[in-house]
């Protein structure tokens, strides 16, 4: 399996604190994406970082990518109760005319009001 790994599996923090989630992957990538999922249904895209980028920001989100270590991190600053969800990283890789996103198992974030 090419599935990546997120760390930690679960994270519980107080509102206002920062949340950091880490992700590792196994193959070379075109890009790495982070998604959010509420209540086990559809995923919402948060941010995409290309393989030649090292850091990217979007609002309260900050993503880093270290291709030498095949790892990425997602930082959510000043967390809110509404940030409670599962967060998945997905490594995008192409080959033989196909393109796949390989998802990790996710980090379950709980933000306590």
């Amino acid at each position, binding site marked *: 399996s090419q599935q990546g790994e997120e760390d930690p599996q679960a994270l519980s923090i107080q509102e206002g604190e920062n949340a950091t989630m880490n992700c590792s992957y196994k193959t070379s990538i075109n*890009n790495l994406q982070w998604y959010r999922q509420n209540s086990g249904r559809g995923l919402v895209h948060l941010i995409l970082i290309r393989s030649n980028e090292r850091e990217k920001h979007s609002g309260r989100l900050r993503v880093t990518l270290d291709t030498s270590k095949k790892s990425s991190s997602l930082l959510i600053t000043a967390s809110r109760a509404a940030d409670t969800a599962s967060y998945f990283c997905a490594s995008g890789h192409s080959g*033989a005319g*196909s*393109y796949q*996103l390989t998802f990790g*198992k996710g980090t379950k974030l709980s933000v306590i009001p």
Partner: protein
Amino acid sequence: GAGVSQSPSNKVTEKGKDVELRCDPISGHTALYWYRQSLGQGLEFLIYFQGNSAPDKSGLPSDRFSAERTGGSVSTLTIQRTQQEDSAVYLCASSSRGGGRAGEQYFGPGTRLTVT
């Protein structure tokens, strides 16, 4: 605008029956993906359609699973002779680009399949 839609939202079926799950991608999106998510797990890639190219079926777990995409738009995932281990949420996603330029995917709400 309209997002990705899937139907039905929930499906309960008896072991051994066939089921069909439908996905309507965002209009104009050339790439369409099917994933399966078991309880508390990440997403498992099943199949990828890109334009008129032959689909990438490398993720289909057995020959009981098949999918088609008619007219480059709507897709149907069919599971024949369902087994209890097929119980999962089946998610469909579409993207405006495929191949090496592929970017973010837009997901539907999923179909929760329960095989009894």
